[in-house]
């Protein structure tokens, strides 16, 4: 595979992993969200508008996107978190579609440096050219994406053994039990959901600048359902799980182009089969625990 293609593929994997991670965060606290694609979209639009219309640098634009994602996700969590599991999932889908349709009405055009730029509703948002105008090479951008992903993973890894991380997992296992032990379930879920919104939005911002063109139709439910799928297949044991899910689909199947127009036929079948025998995903909690125990044993005896 030529280097350029490999770099592009790796970038796609990194960006999609952020979305999958955001789905994972919600799953961690025991909910399914089919709406993470909406925060991906919000991040894309917000950061795109900041860098093209307001002339912001990339980093602050991305952070703005993340903030928008977090706030939107947090606000919408208020009325929805009290819904039961499946109702919550469908509600997130409904909200996401509402947001996507609303984006079709977003017209905000300005003249910047002689160009007409800005989102034009259903026709999309062209010329998000910050990377091109600042001579950022694909390699450098890949490093940026990897850095963002790594940062997210490190934060999650750092949190994992700490009280917050444990509390989040406990909520995910059994809300009622966690509540009876005095954990502020709703607040913890809100936190996780807002963070998930931020993560998805970060991914969206990166995507927008990479693709230079976004439109509402891109952020349809399929994207969100895929994100959940990746997290479930990779396993909820660690934050690496969703990455594995993404790599399996995009990395293995897409890259090898072995199955051309039958990728989904193969992938879908494999996943269903896989889940039948390993319902908790590749890196489920039992496996992670065993790996951890083996590692500690290894450290002790060497």
């Amino acid at each position, binding site marked *: 595979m030529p280097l350029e293609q490999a770099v592009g593929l790796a970038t796609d994997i990194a960006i999609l992993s952020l979305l999958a991670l955001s789905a994972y965060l919600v*799953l961690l606290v*025991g*909910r*399914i969200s089919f709406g993470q694609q909406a925060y991906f979209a919000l991040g894309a639009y917000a950061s795109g508008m900041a860098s093209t219309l307001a002339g912001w640098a990339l980093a602050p634009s991305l952070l703005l996107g993340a903030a928008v994602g977090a706030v939107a996700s947090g606000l919408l969590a208020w*009325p*929805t*978190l*009290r*819904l*039961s*599991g*499946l*109702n*919550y999932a*469908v*509600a997130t889908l*409904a*909200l996401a*579609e*509402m947001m996507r*349709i*609303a984006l*079709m*009405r977003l017209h905000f055009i300005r003249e910047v440096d002689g160009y007409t730029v800005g989102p034009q509703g259903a026709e999309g948002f062209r010329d998000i050219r910050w990377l091109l105008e600042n001579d950022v090479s694909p390699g450098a951008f890949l490093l940026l994406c990897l850095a963002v992903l790594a940062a997210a993973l490190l934060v999650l890894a750092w949190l994992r053994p700490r009280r917050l991380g444990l509390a989040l997992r406990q909520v*995910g*296992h*059994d*809300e*009622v*039990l966690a509540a009876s032990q005095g954990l502020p379930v709703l607040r913890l*879920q809100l936190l996780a959901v807002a963070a998930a919104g931020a993560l998805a939005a970060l991914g969206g911002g990166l995507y927008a600048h990479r693709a230079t063109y976004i439109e509402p139709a891109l952020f349809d*439910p*399929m994207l969100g*359902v895929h994100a*959940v*799928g990746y997290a*479930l*297949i990779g396993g909820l044991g660690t934050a690496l799980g969703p990455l594995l899910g993404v790599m399996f689909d995009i990395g293995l199947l897409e890259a090898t182009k072995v199955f051309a*127009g*039958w*990728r*989904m*036929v193969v*992938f*879908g*079948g*494999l*996943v*269903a*089969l896989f*889940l*039948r025998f390993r*319902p*908790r995903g590749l890196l489920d909690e039992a496996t992670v625990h065993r790996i951890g125990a083996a590692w500690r044993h290894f450290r002790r005896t060497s």
Partner: protein
Amino acid sequence: MLEFLQRTLDGWLEGSAYALVGLGLTLTFGTLRRLNLAYGATAMLAAYVGAWLYARQGLPAWGVALVVVGLAALIGLYVERLCFGAIGSGGSTQGHEGRGSATRVGGGFDGTEVVALASSFALWMQLEQLAVNLLPRHLNAFPDLAARTEWGFFGLYLRPDRLAVAALALLITLALTRWLMHTRGGLAWRAAATQRTAAGLVGIRVGQVQATAFLVACALSGVAAFAVLSLEGQITPMLGMWMLTKGLVAAMLGGLGSVRGVLLGGWLLGIVEAHAQAAFGAVGREFATYALLFLVLVASPAGRSGLLGRGGLRHAA
């Protein structure tokens, strides 16, 4: 005023189609406590095969109908074996396996529920791509049974073919309700849905019962697909997603799992969409669909969702 009534009538007819589409989906949830994400794709693949046979082999319309319904059930068998049968369906199981759903009241997922969801999503992807590969063009011909005339009465117009679809939706709903509420077999379906262990204890063969219910639901998806497509005379790759979305919204409006509910939910959806379209255009109509769904979900009292939702004690009728 007449315009308003006409729009309501059109919406009701369209809504009946939504109800028909949602019947199988709600039945699956009512009897297995599972949402089958591969629902639309199942019907889509069956319909594509039907379309292929129609176009390449000249199969007549009634033959296509048989193929679509029968094949949908067959594909359902595949989906059931892979996603729902082996992994196990919902309804509480006795706690000594450690994971009874006794403690999960409001939010946490029972592990198998999530897996079945992911699994059915994977098969959705698979089946949909199989269908699209069969007939690569975007628009493909489907037996056209659309009526050429319109019936008029008191200044209102309606097409007899759409009325037939509405009648079909009503008929199937009544038949299913009768089955569920007044027959021994239906009792078994309802018993196995919420309490598998006890169902086994009274002698119900739970695995068989649930597989049968699932197959019936998938066959219904084929019926709905044929009905809707034959009125259009064409089939597109949007069918799978469309059926799942409309069916899910109609079912949730009426209370997921309730057969009577999906009829009411479909009617509500159709009528609201018709008026939203007139007021806000196509985009507004789409928005209204999801806004309505969201409102119903959020406004329902805790534990009861939809028009006929009866909370955790919901039974399939």
